[in-house]
């Protein structure tokens, strides 16, 4: 279960002279295996919400209860140290999550298809390559709940299909929170949906209802 209780989040604006409330009184409860789609326009606070859920930032007030392990936002390559090799980055994740490095490396080699590049610094990767690496690493840690921010722009078409299969078919028992503009992604894969507007989250009965409301915004 993942629970957001009365979450408020503000950021300083005008060099700290004022505050902007980005999220207002957010309440959400994600049970095991549920797939949530969060819809919202640019700047509605979707990514802020993801950062709070992943634990990268802290709410201004309110409480987040997690008793599921939660992934970092998928295909997020920002944790990579550019001067380290792909292999060293895998090692970092393995150490942090306490998983077997050899097994993980074997999976990443097979899945990301980066070949000899894994022994090169990540800064030499193309953006497609580094998101391949990021996605492969996230699949090698067995999370209970996956966070997906803004459609997974991972590599070419074939790799994209492979990711979808790996995530939505092989891991269909996991919880998921998808934050996106892409309707299809949410229509195809979610069983719950909510719309974020002006920092307020409204939960709708069906995914179609939420999409309808979002389209009318």
């Amino acid at each position: 279960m993942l629970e957001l209780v009365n979450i408020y989040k503000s950021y300083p604006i005008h060099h700290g002279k004022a505050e902007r409330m980005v999220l207002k009184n957010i309440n959400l409860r994600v049970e095991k295996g549920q797939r949530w789609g969060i819809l919202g326009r640019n700047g509605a606070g979707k990514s802020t919400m993801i950062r709070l859920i992943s634990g990268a930032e802290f709410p201004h007030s309110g409480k987040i209860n997690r008793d599921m392990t939660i992934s970092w936002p998928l295909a997020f390559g920002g944790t990579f140290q550019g001067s380290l090799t792909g292999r060293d980055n895998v090692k970092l994740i393995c150490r942090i999550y306490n998983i077997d490095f050899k097994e993980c490396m074997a999976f990443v080699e097979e899945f990301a298809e980066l070949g000899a590049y894994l022994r090169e610094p990540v800064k030499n990767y193309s953006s497609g390559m580094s998101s391949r690496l990021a996605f492969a690493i996230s699949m090698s840690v067995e999370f209970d709940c996956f966070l997906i921010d803004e459609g997974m722009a991972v590599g070419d078409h074939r790799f994209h299909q492979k990711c979808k299969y790996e995530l939505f078919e092989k891991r269909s028992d996991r919880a998921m929170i998808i934050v996106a503009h892409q309707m299809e992604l949410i229509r195809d894969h979610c069983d719950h949906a909510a719309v974020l507007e002006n920092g307020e989250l409204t939960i709708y009965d069906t995914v179609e209802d939420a999409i309808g409301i979002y389209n009318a915004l």
Partner: protein
Amino acid sequence: MITRPKTSFLYQLGIQRRVIWALVMREMITRYGREGIGVLWLVGEPALFIVGVMVIFGSIEGARNGISMAEYLAVSYPTIILWRNTTGRVAKALEVNAALLHLNPVRPIDLYYSRIFLEFSGAIASFLILYLIFVAVGICQWPADVLMMTFGYFMVAWFSFGFVMIMGALSEMSETIDRISHIILYLMLPFSGIFVPAYLVPAQYRDPLLLTPLINCVEMFHAGYFGDRMHTYYSITYTISINLLMTFAGLVMVQIAIRRVKLVK
């Protein structure tokens, strides 16, 4: 496989230990790479610093009570590495590494702890190695009281920890502090106890000067090393109280800074 989040203190401590170690290894490879002497720079850099200062100032003829300038510096200058170099390393540590916080087991404070751990290890190792060499070549002697010297070194490290946490938090909260932090570090030199031992300071200035905890710490360290050869001034209870206070203030301020981190992405 990830095991379920557990709430027991020891379990959580296990995670934190693992995370800090992972961050230390990452930082080490990032900073020193795998080429040349690589990780040895961790010890080599502070060691060169100490040797450099000793070569320049050690030639000054100023032996007092049989203590040469070189000997004095050999057991004084290494203390500076703890608080000065580490302060530089933790500045903006949160902002620079904010993306790492997406990894749920990584808590912001671990970013501080891992950097402090790495820097302290280098400082301690370089001091121990140089000290043994200095004893071997006859610049230094064995300590008069090893226990006291160790205690003094520990006190310097403890002071540095509190100081570094405070400076780290401030660098995160204020651009101004971040910019002037090297000025603060420079202006601290006269109050660091390394260049002038307390007994050489005129009596009327000595008492106010001894209000600085760092001087007390260094004096304790000196008391352990020099023993009867040098008159030292310090108050253990006063220094422990101030160190406690600084550690507490540092931890609170870091928590405040953490609440204010904004990821760039």
